[in-house]
């Protein structure tokens, strides 16, 4: 996918002061970075390391001592940047009411009274301050004041919303609530901005919110790390990947002289995403038996011809058998593996046992379902729970088919039972012997 054109780009921007004796104090080393649309970018660093300076350079509030800032490819210097900004201390005007504070930027743009009021009321509704229009900031709590700050930043429909440690002055619970609401508005696209740039010293916050994290090390400030988070929202603070990322950032910040490599996402994570081939246990058994008859291997085309099947219809079964480790495909030939041979020669009970072992070992989804059921006291869960997970990765129709296949395999392998009446899955720990 082609990279969308960045909204703001900084090229070798620097910030320094020249003292009277000619000595130079470097605040920010030459830094280049870009803010692309559709992203939340977090700038992370210890306090006082120059992150606010970089934010002010990018947003046009400060001029860099060297280098240039581009807005949509053209120098930002002569232009009016359409940005919004949210401050740590809220920066509301105490003598203006909430609605007057929010309307002020619109007033500056020469928008008439009626339109101003309409837009302001709409954005106040979005951030949840309906009914507080005439209140004054001193009557509001910290969380509500920052909501006003958000409303003011968004009412101009900025292309980039800059936030300078917006949650640092709030208590923990309020900050969490606001972060959650921000994410929700962003995900559901109710927020009229194309990109968000947030400066923070809170590692957890950065990993929770951002699609892309830039870590700034100091003395003088420079970009030490820049990585994509790649996790879907909402993110679980306790999930292994989250903790891995936090750990990585922590190491980068506290041991800046060593190089740290961001660990790639676990194979297991990727496996979970592998779709199940749509084949029934019966079909898999049949394939294995046929191959056993033919001496353990056969050409796929030949097999398809003989069975009067399209190759397209045969392939899922072959894939399923491969996934379970019963068959290997080598140069167009399907070959039985050792476990496949064992499967072909086993009795029905034994087959179930072999299938169950193979399934739990090699099919992540079934493993996941089993551990989820195990984690509950009554070992039962509504099927909807698993359908939701599949929904996230597949289209509606495909998710449904995936779930059916998993259901087939799981029931056959007696990993779980499914009651279609109550739509619930219940764990089965042991195989019931065949009558």
């Amino acid at each position, binding site marked *: 996918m082609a990279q969308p054109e960045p909204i703001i780009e900084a090229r070798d921007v620097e910030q320094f002061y020249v003292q009277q004796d000619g000595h130079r104090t470097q605040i920010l080393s030459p830094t280049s970075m870009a803010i692309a649309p559709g992203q939340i970018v977090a700038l992370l660093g210890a306090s006082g390391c120059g992150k606010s300076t970089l934010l002010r350079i990018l947003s046009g509030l400060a001029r860099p001592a060297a280098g240039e800032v581009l807005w949509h490819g053209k120098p930002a210097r002569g232009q*009016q940047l359409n940005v919004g900004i949210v401050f740590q201390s809220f920066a509301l005007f105490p003598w203006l009411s909430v609605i007057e504070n929010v309307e*002020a930027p619109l*007033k500056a743009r020469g928008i008439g009274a009626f339109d101003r009021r309409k837009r302001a009321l709409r954005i106040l509704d979005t951030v949840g301050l309906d009914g507080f229009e005439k209140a004054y900031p001193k009557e509001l709590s910290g969380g509500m004041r920052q909501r006003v700050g958000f409303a003011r930043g968004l009412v101009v429909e900025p292309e980039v919303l800059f936030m300078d440690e917006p949650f640092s002055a709030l208590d923990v619970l309020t900050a969490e609530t606001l972060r959650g609401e921000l994410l929700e508005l962003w995900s559901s696209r109710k927020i009229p901005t194309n990109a968000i740039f947030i400066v923070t010293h809170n590692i957890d916050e950065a990993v929770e919110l951002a699609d892309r994290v830039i870590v700034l090390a100091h003395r003088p400030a420079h970009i030490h790390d820049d990585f994509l988070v790649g996790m879907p929202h909402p993110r679980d603070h306790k999930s292994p990947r989250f903790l891995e990322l936090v750990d990585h950032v922590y190491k980068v910040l506290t041991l800046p002289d060593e190089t740290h490599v961001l660990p790639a996402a676990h194979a297991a994570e990727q496996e979970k995403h592998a779709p199940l081939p749509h084949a029934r246990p019966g079909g898999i058994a049949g394939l294995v038996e046929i191959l056993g008859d033919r001496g353990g291997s056969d050409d796929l085309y030949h097999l398809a011809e003989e069975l009067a099947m399209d190759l397209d219809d045969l392939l899922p079964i072959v894939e399923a058998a491969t996934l379970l480790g019963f068959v290997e495909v080598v140069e167009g030939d399907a070959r039985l593996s050792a476990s496949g041979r064992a499967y072909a020669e086993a009795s029905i009970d034994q087959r179930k046992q072999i299938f169950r072992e193979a399934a739990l070992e090699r099919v992540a989804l079934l493993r996941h379902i089993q551990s989820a059921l195990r984690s509950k006291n009554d070992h039962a869960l509504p099927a909807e729970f698993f359908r939701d997970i599949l929904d996230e990765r597949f289209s509606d129709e495909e998710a449904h088919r995936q779930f059916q296949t998993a259901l087939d395999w799981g029931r056959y392998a007696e990993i779980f039972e499914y009651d279609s009446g109550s739509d619930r899955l219940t764990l089965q720990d042991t195989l019931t012997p065949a009558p």
Partner: protein
Amino acid sequence: MSTPSLLHRLYLRRDRGTLPIDAVIFGAVLAGLYALFGVGRVWLAPYTPAAEISRSPWSLPLYSMYSLARMGMAYVASLVFALVYAYIAARNKVAERLMIPCLDILQSIPVLSFLPGVMLAMVALFPGRQIGLELGSVLLIFTGQVWNLAFSFYASLKGLPRELMEASRTYRFGLWQRFYQLELPFGAIGLVWNSLMSVAGGWFFLMACEMFQLGNRDFRLPGLGSYLQTAANEGDTASILWGLAAMIIVILLLDQLLWRPLIAWAEKFKFELVESASAPHSAVLAWLARSPVLAWLERKVIAPAWEAANLRVARMEREARERPPEPPAAWQAAALRAVAIGAVVVVLYGVVRAGHSLMELTVSDVVALLRGAEATFLRVMAALAVGTLWTIPVGVAIGSRPRLAALAQPLAQIAASVPATALFPVVLLVLLRLGGGMGLAAILLMLLGTQWYLLFNIIAGAQAIPTDLKEAATVYRFSGWERWRLLILPGIFPYLVTGLVTAAGGAWNASIVAEYFRFQGRVMSTPGLGSTISHATDSGNFQLLLASTMVMAAVVVTVNRLLWRRLYRLAQTRYQLG
């Protein structure tokens, strides 16, 4: 309101070798005075019809109106000038380096030292017409008020929180919108309190102007001040009482109808994000807020007009911004340079001419001048000492009892507004009957005019002593003397210094009126700098007038630098509480 911190900031900022700029400014002042007095000198034999001041109580309302009108005009002019001056100084680095030292010096020069010279000049410029005197009084009051207001607004502009400025820049506020939505509201409380103080000082000058007489020349204007002076002249006790009553009523009305509502309204602009439990209230403001007529006016007339005007200004500013910036024409820079050079040349010329003129002074003149300066200086110090002696115990007592303080503070403000200069003729009358001399009267006048500033500041200082320090003193069982020595006196020290500076300025001003006064047909004077100034004007000794005015200005500024600023620094470093 925080006069200590405002003045602190001024004094601390200025300590970076600004001697050359000060010298330039002094030179400019000298040249200016030379020009001013030169104008007045032109006038030889005047015919200012002597003002007929009626002693009838029925003329009091009219006279009050006259006085109020002069105050009002002077105040409006001061406010507008102060806002513009402060804005330019705060936003333009080059201008700031000249304008702030200028403000500092001009603020220190006692306004009344110009009184004779300005009146002379004004009469010369507008011979035979009342308007000269009126303009002169308005000008003097303006000079007394404007620097205080300018400095307050300048300090608040400099103290604007950075994030609010950043918000206004990001959201593209034009200059006008930033001014009325951010800068002016932020400075509003300081401006209101300083207006209160400036107007109180203004009354002082106004009364002095209204009753001004030199030798056989009469510069009086019809008003409260001249009424009281005429009444005292004739020994007419009944009229004196009526006059005093009228003055007090005027002050009270101003307080209730103007200052209290303004202070209550200005609470809105307090830059604290906490609802204050003891916010000042004003019944008048509450009544105005409920008025349906005013509400209708606001909704139908004022708000739409204001909105339309703002949009128009915003649009003009946007268009100006979008036009590509024209490079400044070469001739503009050259013209600016020419003007600057021209100004310097004029000042130099004035200084040189003034210098020549001053050389014409005889030695005995100079000696008398210096002796007079010494005498007045001693009187000022005496007045301050006496004032401090009684205001410290009373002020601390009041300040330590919150309920008493809440009662006493408005009273002290009103008392500070009552112009001592208006009382002077009355005081003189009483003293003469008792057998005192002008010297004593002078000290008494200085005291009357300035002790309220001391009291005011000491009350504030006593209130500001943190409770935990007081508790520590109790727990460790400080004796009475120890409590005073270790806690109270150091605690109120910064506030005391502020009060002393203001009081000293007022005392020097009072000396002009107090040391040379025409009363009951004769001129009463006592040796001093103030009397030298007035005498020089009276006898037409132009060089002496110039010299004595400059000497007074120089003495006050020097005392400022050597004494008050040192004390400030001491207060800031050793005695700052938190």
